């Protein structure tokens, strides 16, 4: 077989900034990907997966600066799905997102129509065609970007942590489609999803400036390397009986109760209806469900960011106003940048404590503890220059310091390793506030591992 993509002696370093000394990301990195194969590139967050994916699409260093050396040989062009889909969507409807690059390529109207129909059909999102990309869930946005690749048909498809936030059925559908497409696929990820074993031909594990290649799919040696590298959750996949038991589990003395909640967005056909839902202090509840079933909407209602049309929300036995819920809930958003605005990570951590008018000495002690616990590597660096994973950890540390009664972790595992994600959840569990934790995830294994009960929404 011939190589579709060949990388030889690639080295790269970003420019340095005040407070953030740049490190060499790659030194003499070399690998080949055969034509028509599917390769999974595993590396921990911060190792340079996004940078490498953007080097292969000629975006880095063109837009970022930095020193790049080495050779890249490509048979054809590359297409990419960014780690954060919001960065890539800018049209008013899903159809226009797909049509835009085809129009830009100067294709005929008939050809654009044919390719667009085919892309929506093959990725199974025909129902999203005339919806606004901004209104789609994280998983739906990623599926839309895959349909853009499907329509533009580049030689090499690069997916940067794309499948993590897609539900289990969606992952299977997309990987089947990718495999059958016969295209060269390169998937960058920090998590070894079990499903990759059935589809990928080659695995790369990158860490400590060393790249190990495992051809012919899964092997015991590869399995060991995955576990040693922290790319998978420890423990086994729960069986149906265990999941059913977790789903049926209820607790006494609940902290938060939702009764007959109904919610719908204006200008949208989406509506959410929840008969009963509760959270208990000191217990973790996992919410699982397909993309777009309303998991994030439920979280926003609990956090007091959305007000339901009907129903009651009781906190500690009293009817809770949105402001009360705001003040009692921590919410780890999918996008950590919503909350970051100060010049250093340390200032971000101090901000909430300063608002509480705590003495500086107490603030310093707490902040230093949070920096160590959450592994904030550059506390005096501007958050805006930190990696996506580091910003997510910073966001978690900010909330950990606020010691609120309820912690909502909304699919916050993108950009951080499974091990780090568990560490974050464990840190909240061990917090003095002993909060009720709500974990939103597609990962049944994670749900079973970290939660005391499971709440299922939509089909799974």
């Amino acid at each position, binding site marked *: 077989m011939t190589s579709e993509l060949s990388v030889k002696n690639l080295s790269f370093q970003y420019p340095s900034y005040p407070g953030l000394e740049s490190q060499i990301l790659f030194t003499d990195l070399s690998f080949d990907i055969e034509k028509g194969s599917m390769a999974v590139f595993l590396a921990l967050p911060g190792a340079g997966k996004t940078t490498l994916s953007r080097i292969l699409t000629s975006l880095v260093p063109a837009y970022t600066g930095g020193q790049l050396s080495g050779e890249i040989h490509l048979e054809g062009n590359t297409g990419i799905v960014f780690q954060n889909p919001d960065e890539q969507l800018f049209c008013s409807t899903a159809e226009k997102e797909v049509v835009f690059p085809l129009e830009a390529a100067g294709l005929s109207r008939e050809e654009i129509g044919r390719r667009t129909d085919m892309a929506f059909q093959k990725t199974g999102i025909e129902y999203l065609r005339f919806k606004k990309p901004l209104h789609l869930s994280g998983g739906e946005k990623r599926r839309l970007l895959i349909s853009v690749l499907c329509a533009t048909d580049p030689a090499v498809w690069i997916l940067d942590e794309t499948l993590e936030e897609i539900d289990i059925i969606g992952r299977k559908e997309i990987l089947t489609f990718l495999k059958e497409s016969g295209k060269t696929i390169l998937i960058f990820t920090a998590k070894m999803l079990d499903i990759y074993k059935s589809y990928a031909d080659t695995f790369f594990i990158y860490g400590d400036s060393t790249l190990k290649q495992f051809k012919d799919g899964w092997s015991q040696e590869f399995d060991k390397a995955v576990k040693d590298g922290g790319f998978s959750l420890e423990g086994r996949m729960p069986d149906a009986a265990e999941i059913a038991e977790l789903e049926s589990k209820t607790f006494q003395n609940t902290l938060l109760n939702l009764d007959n909640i109904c919610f719908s967005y204006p200008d949208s056909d989406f509506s959410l209806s929840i008969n009963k839902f509760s959270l208990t202090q000191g217990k973790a509840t996992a919410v699982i469900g397909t993309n777009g079933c309303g998991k994030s909407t439920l979280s926003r209602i609990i956090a007091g960011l959305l007000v339901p049309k009907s129903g009651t929300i009781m906190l500690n036995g009293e009817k809770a106003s949105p402001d009360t819920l705001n003040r009692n809930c921590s919410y780890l958003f999918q996008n950590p940048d919503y*909350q970051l605005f100060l010049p250093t990570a340390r200032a971000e951590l101090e901000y909430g404590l300063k608002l509480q008018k705590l003495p500086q000495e107490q603030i310093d002690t707490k902040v230093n503890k949070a920096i160590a616990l959450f592994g904030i590597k550059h506390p005096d660096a501007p958050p805006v220059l930190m990696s996506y994973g580091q910003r997510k950890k910073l966001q978690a540390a900010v909330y950990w310091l606020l010691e609120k009664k309820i912690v909502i972790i909304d699919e916050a595992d993108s950009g951080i390793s499974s091990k780090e994600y568990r560490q974050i959840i464990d840190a909240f569990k061990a917090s003095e506030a002993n909060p009720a934790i709500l974990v939103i995830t597609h990962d049944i294994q994670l749900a079973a591992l970290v939660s005391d009960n499971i709440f299922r929404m939509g089909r799974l």
Partner: protein
Amino acid sequence: MNLDPRLKLILMLLYTAAFFSPVGVLRYALLLLPLMIAGFTICRPKEFLGVFKLILPILLLTAIITPFFSGILETVRIMLRFIGITAVFFLFFKTTDSDEFIQTLRFFGMPYRMALIISISTSYIPLLLDTYRDTESAHKLRYTVSTPAPSRWNVIARFCSMLPVLASVLIQAIKSIPILAMALEIRGVGKAKPTVFRPIQCKTPLHKQFLLYFLPITVIILIIVFLF
């Protein structure tokens, strides 16, 4: 009514010019009336009124400062001008999507790249508004039960509490510039002569729209501005 965006663009410019014409308060109010009717017909009242909430600081500032220099009538006139222009632009962009806007600009001879830049810039305004709302929500969650709430009537404290939100939005907006450029590049912008998949289509033919809607509205505007 799905009015052709090319006619809407001309009407928008005509309306804007009318709101800058040196006419009295009554005529401004007459110009504003059809816009208000259209606004409340097209949008939910909360959404339409929300647009004016955004310019409330400007209106308040005008109401406080201008009477000392130009009198009450001039103050009302300036305020109606702000409201009118805001309503015109809001209604245009509410009823015209970015693709139609690009095609409209290109119809009037603007080069593709320039039309694309203008279209993306204008479509970023609602996006920024959404970002502002999300960021504001995220910042609310940084308060705890022991954080003192800023007094509802303490304008300075309320303004200060907005600064972190504005800073976050600004950071995100600046960060999005190179990322948007990347997103456009990987979609192949500028590599070939672009085509159009869905040309501007309206149920009513252009000439009928011109006669039925464009011409009467234009005549009414001109009458309000120049006659009686």
